[in-house]
């Protein structure tokens, strides 16, 4: 398997090829997509992209953790975490992709 890592650059290159805007503008639009999604999530909103997946923000309560090296107890303060739930379409395509 190829195991490549794609970055923003690859996404803007795809937009550039698909839509024919300048490379610069394509990059700005990719950034705008990520920015709007981040803003919504930071404000606690769920972001639901049909046939892609759902990003939701969950509240975690405070708990006592442990430093695995020293065994010391350390308090973990309440925090918000992001979870991503892939759509069925994404799961199916990823599962099918690995079989080839």
């Amino acid at each position: 398997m190829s195991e490549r890592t794609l970055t923003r650059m690859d996404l803007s290159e795809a937009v550039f090829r698909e839509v024919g805007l300048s490379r610069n503008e394509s990059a700005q639009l990719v950034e705008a997509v990520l920015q709007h999604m981040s803003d919504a999530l930071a404000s606690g909103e769920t972001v639901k992209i049909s046939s892609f997946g759902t990003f939701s923000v969950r509240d975690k309560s405070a708990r006592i953790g442990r430093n695995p090296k020293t065994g010391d107890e350390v308090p973990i303060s309440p925090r918000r975490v992001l979870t991503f739930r892939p759509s069925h379409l994404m799961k199916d395509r990823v599962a099918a992709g690995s079989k080839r």
Partner: protein
Amino acid sequence: MIRSELIQKIADENPHLTQRHVERIVNTVFEEIIEALAKGDRVELRGFGAFSVKARDARLGRNPRTGEAVDVEQKDVPFFKTGKLLRDRLNGK
């Protein structure tokens, strides 16, 4: 926020682009990520997060209705890890 609202926000900021154009742009971004994952590639978007593929071992599952044991094959599943910047933003840092 849903896909159409995301498209609307970007269309509002880019009055020189048609709604159709913005739709294609946004759809391309998500499609490209799915295609990469389907090939087994990773997609790393600094500050936002990284999409990758993890292997789930074959296991013996159970039909929840009948309680019957069923073989579940080894399969790859998509995984997302939140980027540091976004994680900090969620916690108001």
